[in-house]
């Protein structure tokens, strides 16, 4: 069965722009998770969970690094010509990678 292919031009350029949005969002996400301990740690709990807190921080850290590494290559330097800067229409229901 043929999938419905929405009218959409310059798919790659569109993906690239969203990728840049992701790159811009990433530090904000990181900041949120790094500041999160403020909400629970000083809550005067008597539990001695410093090790768990540390592990939490390093896990977030590792995830940030991994996502940044995944984003870095396709992002390039932002200097590459955006192949076919086309109109953006109907961008609501395109799955990542989209039908080709």
């Amino acid at each position, binding site marked *: 069965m043929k999938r419905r292919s929405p009218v959409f031009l310059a798919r790659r350029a569109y993906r690239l722009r969203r990728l840049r949005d992701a790159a*811009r969002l990433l530090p904000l996400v990181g900041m949120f998770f790094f500041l999160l*301990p403020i909400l629970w740690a000083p809550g005067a709990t008597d539990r001695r969970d410093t090790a768990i807190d*540390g592990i939490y921080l390093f896990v977030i850290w590792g995830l940030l690094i991994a996502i940044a590494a995944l984003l870095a290559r396709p992002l390039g330097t932002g200097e590459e010509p955006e192949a076919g800067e086309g109109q953006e229409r109907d961008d609501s229901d395109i799955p990542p990678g989209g039908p080709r």
Partner: protein
Amino acid sequence: MPFNLLVLACLTYVAFLFLIAFVAERRALSGGRRWLGSPLVYTLSLSIYCTAWTFYGAVGYAARSGLEFVTIYLGPTLVFVGWWWVLRKLVRIGRQQRVTSIADMISSRYGKSSGLGVIVTLICVVAATPYIALQLQSVTLSFGVFAAAGTYGWALPDTNSTALWVAGGLALFTILFGTRNLDANEQHTGVVIAIAVEAVVKLVALIAVGIFVVWVVADGPGDIVARINDSRIADWDLVPSRWAGLIALSAAAVITLPRMFQVLVVECGDDRNLGTASWAFPLYLAGMSIFVVPIAVVGLKVMPEGANPDLFVLTLPLSQGQGGLAMLAFLGGFSSATSMVIVASIALATMVSNHVVMPLWLRLRPARAVSGDVRRLVLNARRFSIAGVLGLGYLYYSLSGGSAALAAIGLISFAGVAQMLPAMLGGIFWRGATRVGAGIGLVTGFAVWAYTLFLPSFGPGGVFPLEVFTIGPFGLGWLRPQALFGVEGMDPLIHALFWSLTCNTACFALGSLLSFPSPVERVQGLAFVNVFDTERAEPRAWEVGRVEPEELLKLAQRILGDELALAFFETAAQAQGTGGYLPDPTPEFLDALERKLAGAVGAAAAHAMIAELAGRARVTVADLIRVADETAQIMEYSSTLESQREELERTARQLREANEKLTQLSIQKDAFLSQISHELRTPMTSIRAFSEILMEGDVPPEMAAQQARIIHDEAIRLTRLLDDLLNLSVLENGTVQLDLRLANLNELIDKALRAAGQTRPERVFVVHRDLPSEALFLRTDPDRLAQVFINLISNSRKYCDAARPELKINVKQRGARVIVDFIDNGSGIPKDKQQIIFEKFTRLTDSARAGGAGLGLAICREIMANLGGTIAYLPAQGGAAFRVTLPLRLEKHPFADAA
């Protein structure tokens, strides 16, 4: 471990670094830059963020304040992961504007203001001095650990002298590799590679100690988790303001610390490296901090009560009898300290020389003309600054006595440099930011920082007496340094950070809103803020046609060095379609030259220097339109007209020049024809007269012989003249037969000097040569080449008008080409004549009838063309100067393909 062995290991390690830096510089020179500029090296060089304060101090920090130490790494992680926001823009601006330091960047953004450059330089020096002292202290302390633990009972005689030795050694290394060259962009390959190696050493060392602690001393990760929750570290309290404030502070510091800016922006050879560093540098930071808490916990347990947790990295392996591991840790700490000091002093020295010494020199120097060797001045200024910066660090260390107060100085220093953040971010994101705003903001922020944090850090009674802390200066309670405006109970660091940045930002914003920027500022603002959108939003700030290119070349040679300047001018001339070494001083060219110079001496100084030669800097209508992006079509149209008119004027000037040249040539040709008829006629007349006498018969034999000799001599003169003409036409047609063989350049020059000695043999000529550089074997036609040399040397002997004539012969090899320069100390060839000396029948002085018919240089030019080379006049060398360029190995006749 014997102390002597430790010193030996240290020296070996330093020698190894020297070697690496040296090899890297060599490789960079021979073009092998590829792996040198790789993302890996770039990322590793960024690791100078982790100083000895991090290497040793993080464990101590964790032992005292639990997980808070990690904030120092979380800030940079966020900045790097979010490289798309700020770093990418910074690096791009840095490359486009050839930024040499953070002071240069801020000064350049705000209208190339030298005042701002001085302020930023001052802030950086004040903030960095204690930090350098801290590094010296850490090295001294770690030496002390080994001395105390030494089985030989060897005690360190004097910590001060150790620090002095370390500072001296570092100064030497930095001066050797940091001020070797003054090339564009201030990149120091050798230093960067050495830093990268040190980065690996410190990471490996810390991880090795970590693995030892987790799997040898403790029983693996599970045990460590249990130990952490049992230890007193688990009692730490997260202070929300400190947690958030320190993350923000370290994020600010990672882009404003002069040394970070140096490796991040100035030494960045390729934009793409940043993409890799965006995840690899946070990874490095995570690697540096993952074992910090385990080491602290185990250290607290194993080491005796009262042991300094700052030195656990070193003392823990020592206490377990692991001398080798301790040595590795020691080298790691040593690496952290040295790499930070080296880069920081290079960055600071660049700022001091470009923003303090150069402007002062430009202002104080008596003559208007740029005189003296600026290159040497800049390099020496830089060398003295490096020594000065390290000297200040040492002085601070010995005055503060290496007290525990130093441990807090890292964060104080961070807060100091963070004062540059508003001006920097405002500069790259807000076009309305002005010089006045930036200046007021910086000064205010710096003052508040000094008052609330830096000066109080010397403790009550240090700089401020105790009363100032408790009741305020002059009894003004709201001015207490640690409770400004009555805000009490805040952590002193956060208090200072909050007030200094708040006042700084407020003054910056208000100053910018209320002041009005100069045109150059507005143009630079646009170039910075829209660095990605505009192709080249550079100010074309120069009036055309006022400046002599030769003057510019002189200036450029003094700053960039002869070779680089000549190459730059030659490329520019070729790009403009004119030959030789002197391009038209178009706005584009002046602009390119300014940025090239800015790479060496900073934007403000370069701007001032060119302004001195080129006259008033001007912002064109086109630039202003770009700035005021209200699209005023009509103005744009008129500006287009104006630029077209300028273009026309330039073309017309070139045409006029061409016409002049033609007219001159035609006049010369006429002159030559009458000259040559005269030359032909004179011998002809005497030949005719004497042959008539001989024909009459009754001449005594000895008279007949004499007359026959005269006839013969005159005939030879005629033949020589005709030979020359014939020679020239053969050369021009390219039908000449070349006799290609190997020849020693040294012998060729010897031969030419001997042969040319017959010209005006009464003159005493001093010839300067560099024999080793002449030891080259060329494959060429040696006789023809010698002819060229003889001609140039005889010309010099004939025309050099100096009282004590000198001739300098320089030989250089550039890849597969050889360059031979002949430079004398006469008055040279006037600019209007430089164009035509290689034309046929050209003689500059009618009076000096020194033989020849004005064919010598024309023949030289044709010979060089046949030998696959060139001959050109080199302007601005302090005399007549000719450059002969030819291939090292001429394989076949250069015209063979065309024939």
